[in-house]
Structure formats: structure tokens, C-alpha cells
């Protein structure tokens, strides 16, 4: 029956967009059709956004309004995990770069936007532009280090992290460096160093703190220090802000630790978020939840839609979805490869390897192993995946 359902959702997926639900005319005037997130109407920031939009309308050439508004949008897109707000920011920044292509602040903002659209090449171009004008530019170096880490260019990342030291921020430089260093043969040292820094009790801003503790937890996880990893994840949680990157990473950790019930408890409400919905669905499959068929159908619809609109930023997740729910290893492998060409974070390695194992593609496995040997990758999750060779057992 379950298999039949999956088959059917495949068929249904083909018709997505063709078949739509029936529209309706609400019966009651006061029927609530859409509830906006609190951040959009209740907060001081939301009022500020409204007034800034009016200001900008009256005076389109005021960089200060553009700059402030762009910051608000980018922040909203993060807190709501809603890409629309990145688009809104882009819409007001683009005209500035058309008239003044070398202005540093707009370039940095555009790099952030491009990075988040997974346009890493475009982001790097903007950052190089900024760094050619101001080689020591703090933000540009930090973002460049991040993008390089995501792309698996660890020595480039470390180089740009070190440039931060010259700007008197040893602390930031060390946090920045810990992830790329841990992924290129210095996992234990990075862990100890970062742990030491974070345990020193130095005050950190909210987001800084979440970022640092999550990074530490990830390094601990890859080293196989599961108990410590969980503790570090909890420290990040205690900061008290619901952070989507943290949610996604911790959900993966819990899945790998075979704690699907904890995953469901953690993200049961996050069904509008594709990445989290995928992790929720995996947990639901492991616990044979009744919600599963609905969630699988939704995911299928959304991946289909993303493909239709030509968006490729979900390929890693889609590969995982297809491997796990669609049972089509070849297709998953193809997507995992396309994803691998764009980004090379540990989760991207996991899915590529799992798909390659499932599709019996020894060539890919060999290539990934070579890549890991060159980079001296240390990761118990990868070891686990390679050890099982069946591609199962690890739900990540």
C-alpha cells in the first residue's frame, strides 16, 4: 500500500500545476485567509520597514533608506526563512549597482543575496570586486571565507579568515577558521581551540553565539563526540532564538543518532519550510507516522515546482528525498552530482555517497574518496556510510 502511494505521488507529481485544487468563495466575511508572521506587523522593525518604504518611495535616491531597508529585508528573510525578502532587498539594491557598479556597501549586500541564492560565482565576483578596492574589508573577507568553505575550498577560506586577524578581531577570525580547518585535517585541534574560546565565557551577540556553538557542535559530531555535540547544540538552543540553520543541522544530528521522535518534537510545526519538512518526513517514516503520506505529497509538489521555476538550490535535499522516498538511486545520484558541483558541505558529501552506493556507482565513490583524501576529511558519518555500503542505516 505504501509503495503504491509512493508510485502514485510520482504520477501525481507529473501533473502538479496542471491539476489544481478547486478555488472557493469564503462564506464568512471575517474568515481569516492568511495569518502573517508576527515579525511583519507587530514589531518595531516592521513599523520601521513601513516608514522606510514610504521614505524610499518619496526619495528613491536616498542610499541611507535603501541600506537600512535592505538590512531589514535580509534579516526578515532569515528569521522567516522566506526567500521573498531577499528578492525585495535585491530589487532595491540592483538599481544602485547599475548607476554605481563599484560602490562597496551595495556590492557586499548583493554578495550576501547571491550567496543565499546559491549563486556562489556571482557572490565571489562581488566580493573580489570589494576586496580589490579594500583588501582588508572585514565583511567581504568573512563572507568570502564562508562561501569558500561551502565550496570545499578550505585553504582559501582559512586565508580569508586570517585576514580578519589583521583587523583586530582575533576572536572572529578563530571562529571563522574553525570549520574550514576542521574539514581539512585539523578537526581535533579546531575543536579544542574553539571549545576553549567558547568556554572562556566571553560575551557574544545572540547570532554570533548561535553560530559559534552550532559550529562547535558540528565539529564534535564529525569527530564522533556525540554526547558533546548534543550539549553544544543545546547551548546554541539556550540562546533562545529559533534559528533555521540550527534547526536543520540539529534535526540531521538527531536523525543520525536515531532519535526520530525528538526530530518530530523539534520541527513538527515547520511544515512550510522544505528543508525541515524533509527531515520531518524522514523522522515520520521511521516512526510510521500518520502524517507521512501528506508530507511526502507536499514535498513532492514543492520539488516539482522548484524544478519548474528553474531553481536549483534544493538539489541536495531533492536528491535525499528521491533516494529516501522515491527509491530512484540513479536520479538521486544525478541530482547529488549537480549539487556537488555547486556546493561541498558535509551533508552534500553524505547524499552523494549514499546515492552512489545505492546506484552501485563505484566510480563516484572512488572520486569522493579521493577528494576526501586530498582534503584529509575527518567525519565519522562518512565512515559510517562507507562502512554500511548498503547506503542504509544512516538516515542522514
Amino acid at each position, binding site marked *: 500500500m505504501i509503495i503504491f502511494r509512493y508510485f502514485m505521488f510520482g504520477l501525481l507529481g507529473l501533473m502538479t*500545476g496542471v491539476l*489544481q485544487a478547486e*478555488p*472557493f*468563495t*469564503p462564506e*464568512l*466575511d*471575517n*474568515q*481569516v*485567509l*492568511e*495569518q*502573517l508572521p508576527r515579525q511583519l*506587523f507587530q514589531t518595531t522593525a516592521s513599523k520601521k520597514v513601513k516608514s522606510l518604504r514610504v521614505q524610499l518611495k518619496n526619495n528613491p535616491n536616498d542610499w541611507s533608506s535603501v*541600506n537600512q531597508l535592505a*538590512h531589514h529585508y535580509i*534579516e526578515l528573510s*532569515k528569521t522567516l*526563512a*522566506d*526567500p*521573498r525578502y*531577499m*528578492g*525585495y532587498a*535585491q*530589487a532595491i539594491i540592483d538599481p544602485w549597482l547599475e548607476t554605481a557598479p563599484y560602490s562597496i*556597501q551595495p556590492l*557586499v549586500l548583493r554578495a*550576501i543575496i547571491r550567496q*543565499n*541564492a546559491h549563486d556562489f560565482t556571482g557572490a565571489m565576483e562581488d566580493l573580489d570586486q570589494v576586496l580589490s578596492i579594500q583588501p582588508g574589508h*572585514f*565583511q567581504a573577507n*568573512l*563572507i568570502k571565507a*564562508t562561501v569558500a568553505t561551502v565550496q570545499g575550498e578550505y585553504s582559501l577560506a582559512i586565508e580569508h579568515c586570517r585576514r580578519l586577524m589583521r583587523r583586530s578581531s582575533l576572536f572572529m577570525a578563530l571562529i571563522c577558521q574553525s570549520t574550514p580547518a576542521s574539514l581539512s585535517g585539523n578537526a581535533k585541534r579546531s575543536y579544542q581551540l574553539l571549545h576553549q574560546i567558547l568556554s572562556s565565557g566571553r560575551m557574544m*551577540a545572540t*547570532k*554570533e553565539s548561535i*553560530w559559534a556553538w552550532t*559550529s562547535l557542535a558540528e565539529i564534535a559530531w564529525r569527530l564522533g563526540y556525540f554526547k558533546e555535540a548534543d550539549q553544544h547544540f543545546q547551548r546554541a538552543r539556550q540562546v533562545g532564538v529559533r534559528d*533555521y*540553520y540550527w534547526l*536543520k*543541522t540539529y534535526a540531521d544530528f538527531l536523525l543520525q543518532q536515531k532519535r526520530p521522535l525528538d526530530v518530530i518534537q523539534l520541527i513538527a510545526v515547520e511544515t*512550510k519550510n*522544505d*528543508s*525541515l*519538512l524533509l527531515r520531518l518526513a524522514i523522522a515520520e517514516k521511521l516512526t510510521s507516522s500518520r502524517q507521512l503520506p501528506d508530507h511526502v505529497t507536499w514535498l513532492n509538489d*514543492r520539488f516539482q*515546482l522548484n524544478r*519548474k*521555476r*528553474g531553481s536549483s*538550490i534544493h538539489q541536495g*535535499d531533492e536528491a535525499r528525498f528521491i533516494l529516501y522516498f522515491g527509491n530512484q538511486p540513479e536520479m538521486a545520484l544525478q541530482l547529488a552530482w549537480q549539487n556537488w558541483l555547486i556546493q561541498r558541505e558535509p551533508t552534500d558529501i553524505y547524499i552523494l555517497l549514499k546515492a552512489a552506493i545505492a546506484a552501485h556507482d563505484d566510480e563516484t565513490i572512488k572520486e569522493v574518496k579521493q577528494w576526501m583524501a586530498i582534503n584529509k576529511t575527518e567525519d565519522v558519518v562518512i565512515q559510517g556510510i562507507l562502512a554500511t555500503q548498503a547506503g542504509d542505516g544512516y538516515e542522514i
Partner: protein
Amino acid sequence: MKSNILLLVLLFLSPFAWSHKASDSFLNLSAEQNVISGRWDIALRDLEFALGLDEDNNGAITWQELRNQSQIIENYAFSQLQVKNRTDVCTREMHSLQVDYHTDGAYAVLNFDLYCSQSIAELNINYQLFFDLDPTHRGLLQIRKSNFSEFVVFSPDHQQENFTLGQSNHWQSLRQFVAEGIWHIWAGYDHLLFLICLLLPSVVRKTSIGWEQKDYLRNILWQVGKIVTAFTIAHSITLILAVLQLVSLPSRLVESAIACSVILVAVNNLYPFFREKAWSVAFAFGLIHGFGFASVLSSMDLTSGGLGVALFGFNLGVEVGQLAIVAIILPSAYFLRSSWFYQRMILQAGSLAIMMLAVIWFLQRALDLRIYEA
């Protein structure tokens, strides 16, 4: 500002695939002659950002708030969408504003028609909705005209698209309807058995002592020709009447009557009472069978190539199917007609079996019983 940017950088140190669905609108257009009927789904979240729907600023967008803005939404949306047939801008008539839920929330549904001055042939569609506010927005268009269907994604870099819809291919749709006709006569057991029952006794005649073979092939062919022609003319008449919606009968009545017709012709093979009047029986029941064909045809898309093509093609297909049955049954019946096997086993036992099956159909259809799912 520096610390502000630093915060932003920190926000994104670990890139996170946008998980929330991005902004899309869904535009469905289907063209027929000079009218395009359309449905446009636009996310309330997007309309809220562009126009401000939440009047009382309480974060809840109600049906009333949406409806209050319906004129503004309509004007805004259609100022960003231009549909031209050749050089002629098609005018819009808004029908209703409704609501639908997609996986990411509520959408306003704009139901409308576009009237073009000439029959739709070459469409030029220019889509700009929200591109000035959100370059990541996409317009997903599905456009249809009879056999033509195309899917297009509009983006800031791709705001225009031309479609050559042209005239639909009559030959292609004719072939499609012919095939449907053939298929229907073969797959619809009741029509098939009705014809077989009518044909079986045409090679023999009942006398006081039993069955005897007919001798003249010419007479047999003449008899068969009359039966088939009468059946054809009759079902064509009712098929046309029904498809043009001049006459309509409840399908339960039609289906029961068709079953009844099979019973009667089968009984006639056991205790002949039509005699030489078989062709008029074929005509009378042909009228009923025509309504049965019509119910099949009306479930198909008749717009492709027009109604004439559909009726002609379907009828032609039914004829071809019938002739194929005649071509299979008649020669074997002719050669076997003098045998005991034909007269007893095929004609009598066969008709009896058919009659029993038809009785089951009749009970099932008339009384809505579920005895055997045909």
C-alpha cells in the same frame, strides 16, 4: 553601520537553502475561438506586500479585507499582464475573485475572460507582475488550446513569450475520433453482443421442424446490409440529437434500455418473432444505442476540430468497427450455417448465454444492483 553588516554576515555564515517556497503566481489560460478563459492564482503574501491588504494591521488577512481590495488587485495585476492576439490587445472581463490554498498559504484566485477581436492564432504575452518588487518572483503560465499545451516560466529576464496556437489540426482530431469510435464499439460489450445477436440468424431461417440454412449469399448479404445500415442511421440520428443537446435521456434509462435490447434480440434467436423485420428492430434499438454513444462522446473534449469533426469521426469509427465485426462473423457463420454445431451451440446456446448476461446487465443498471461489475 559596520556592526549592522557584521550581524548580517553572521546571519548567513552558514548558507541555508531557502526552504520556504519562493514567490510564484500561477496563470492558467485556455483559448477557444476568440476567447481566452483564465485563472490567475496570486499569493496573498505577495499582494499584502505590494498593496497592503491587512487594513486593520492585525496580521490576519480576512475575506472581507481581500474583497474590499478586489478592484485594486484586479487593476494592479492586469496592469502587469498584457495579452495580445497578433497586434490586437484582448480586453478583459473579470468574473470572480475566489480563494485557494496552495502548500505555502492562501492565494487570491482571479477568474476572468479575455476577449480578442479575432480568432486566437498568435498570442503575445507580456508578464511583469512583482518583478519590480521581487526579482525572484516567477510567473508560471500554462496555456492551452485544443491539442496545444505549453508551460512557460516568466522571470525578469524573460517577460515576454509568443505562442503560435494556429488552427487545430482537423485531420489529427478526426483520426482521434475515428479511433475512439472503433474502440467504443469493440470495448462496449453491449453494442458488440447486440450486433452479433442480430447477425447470427441471418444465415439461417427457422421452420416448423427446426433451423435450415439459407442458400443465397446475395439474400444474406442484403439482409445483413439492411440490418447494419438501419442500425447506423438510427444511432447516428440520436447521437447527433444528444450531442447537440436537443434530446437528453437519463443515462440509467438509456443503459437499461440497451441491456433490454440485447435481451430481446437474443430471445428472438431462440423464439423468432422479428422474422424478416430484423432491420426495423435494428433501427428501433439503434436509436437507443445512439444515446449510449453520445454519453461516451460527451465525456471527450469536443472542441478540438469542432463538433462536426467529432461527430463525423466518431460515427465513422463506429461504422468501421461494425464492419469489422461483420467481416469476422459473417464468413464463419456462412460456412458453418448448416452444421448442428452452429445451429445448436452457437446460435441457440450462444444466444441463451448472451441473454442471461444481458438480464444481469439490465437488473444491474435498472435497479442499480451490483451483481457483476461489467
